[in-house]
């Protein structure tokens, strides 16, 4: 056997196991799913039988559905709040941890740990905190007795329930994002700081004129990372609020904190409208693809500047 033939054989032999798995769970379902979004597919048990092509009906109906449009809006709001909170907390923590503290390694570990526990479990822990621990503060501290009122439960109102999701999201991701900022801050040459100190720059000036500009590359990474992760949030949503509380929106009862990923899941499995859920998943994909294109564009631009 000649070398070229052998190389080609090895190429396909080495590639085929992973290619097979990838085809089975990504490629084939992706094309099936895109097709199903344009059909009246209802039961996942019997496929093909009687599935009709119905064009863009699932999409137009989705955009006309108040619950979906509300989910879209609340997801955008949640994503923006989450991005701001996570990045501010993470950057401040990174600055603190790199300022020469005695127990810096212990702090890093502590801030990072929530990230290792699954979002589902984190959500249940915080459900307990918001439903049991927070109201019990009313027993302990007299002027907080309003917390005992069932009407004042954090997860009972949409606005505070969204903030609860943001708090848990921040707790979950801040330590991870902090690690990226730490790496960036530690990469800033010490000489720059020393020179600035000799010139009489205050710590705040050094932060604004040296640390932040030098860490600019890290900001692009963390912004897109938190953007995509927040937009895809599902686990914490399920375990913390399950989408609740119920509210009235445009004359229809809907779930007040149902993020997009949960809306897609519920549309398919709770309302039993698989094709509709699939169409929403396609919309979800388009938004994420758009974000990815912007990210590639921004990164290319940044690379050119450097």
């Amino acid at each position, binding site marked *: 056997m000649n070398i070229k033939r052998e190389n080609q054989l090895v190429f396909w032999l080495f590639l085929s196991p992973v290619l097979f798995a990838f085809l089975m769970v*990504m490629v084939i379902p992706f094309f099936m799913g895109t097709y199903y979004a344009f059909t009246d597919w209802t039961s996942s048990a019997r496929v093909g039988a009687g599935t009709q092509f119905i064009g863009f009906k699932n999409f137009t109906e989705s955009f006309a559905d108040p619950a979906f449009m509300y989910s879209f809006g609340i997801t955008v709001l949640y994503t923006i709040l989450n991005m701001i909170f996570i990045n501010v907390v993470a950057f401040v923590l990174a600055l603190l941890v790199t300022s020469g503290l005695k127990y810096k390694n212990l702090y890093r570990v502590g801030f990072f740990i929530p990230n290792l526990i699954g979002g589902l*479990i984190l959500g249940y822990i915080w459900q307990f905190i918001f439903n049991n621990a927070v109201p019990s503060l009313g027993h302990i501290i007299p002027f907080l007795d309003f917390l005992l009122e069932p009407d004042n439960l954090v997860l009972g109102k949409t606005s505070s329930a969204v903030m609860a999701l943001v708090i848990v999201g921040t707790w979950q991701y801040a330590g991870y994002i902090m*690690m990226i900022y730490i790496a960036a801050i530690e990469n800033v040459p010490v000489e720059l700081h020393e020179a600035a100190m000799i010139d009489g720059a205050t710590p705040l000036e050094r932060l604004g004129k040296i640390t932040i500009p030098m860490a600019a590359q890290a900001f692009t990474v963390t912004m897109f990372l938190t953007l995509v992760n927040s937009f895809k949030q599902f686990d914490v949503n399920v*375990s913390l609020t399950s989408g609740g509380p119920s509210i009235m929106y445009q004359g229809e009862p809907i779930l007040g904190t149902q993020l997009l990923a949960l809306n897609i899941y519920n549309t398919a499995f709770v309302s039993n409208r698989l094709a509709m859920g699939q169409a929403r*998943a396609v919309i979800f994909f388009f938004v994420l693809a758009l974000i990815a294109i912007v990210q590639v564009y921004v990164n290319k631009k940044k690379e050119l500047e450097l």
Partner: protein
Amino acid sequence: MNKRKLGLLVAEIITALVFLLFLFPFLLVLINSAKTSFEITQFPLSWPEDWGNILKNTVRIWTSESVRYPSSLLSSALITALSLLFINLLSAQAAWALVRTKTKTSSVIFFIFVAAMVIPFQIVMFPLLSWFRMVTVTTGVRLIRTYQGIILAYIGFGASLSIFLFHGFIKSIPLELEEAATIDGCRRYQIFYEIVFPILTPIQATVLVLNGIWIWNDYLLPLLVLGKGNAIQTIPLAVSNFAGAFVKQWDLILTAILLAMIPVIIFFLFAQKYIVKGMIAGSIK
């Protein structure tokens, strides 16, 4: 100099307070795992009266028919370990084949793997289930509610990022090393298994950590592929079934959560260095 010391002290105190605040939810889980359900509803913030309760609650969870903690732990460990084993080896060999074969086909395949990283699980999850059922009907191989089905799914979903990471690393390995081995009479496949694969250890650590944390904590894929009420269930599934079934029994729910967190925290304390490094590397690439 004195002013700087004072500033440092203030920073130390602030950071220590935030640190305690960050870990406070875990403390709440711990103290409430040592309470009776009456104690929890009355005093969720108090110190437990009798730490012996933590043992009682643990035994109740461990032996509970509805949680099935021991078998869930075993299933989670088996699924994570086997998926990691396959992802690591199969993605590494695929990445090597893609780097060392410079053809149009090879670049197109690599591009598809990378582009697929943008695809969210939501768009493939419903058709995945019906496709798995079709495969079972036509070939007789059961993929839904089985180990082989979920492990196949993790290999497929983990492939993109893993191949991408290996690809970047392998590109930096000098080709001379492999050429020398060829001259010494090594066959093509031997070059990979005996020479290249052992050099990949640092990037293997990254791949294992990133995929390991994802698979161990994953909820949605096991929920769909394994389903509820299955003999095979992972820890997140066990916790969610249980927390749904026992709506107000926080003493048991929190103990179940504590037991679910312990393996992760122990693992983290041992492999801290690799985990932090791996996760940062994975995010920046």
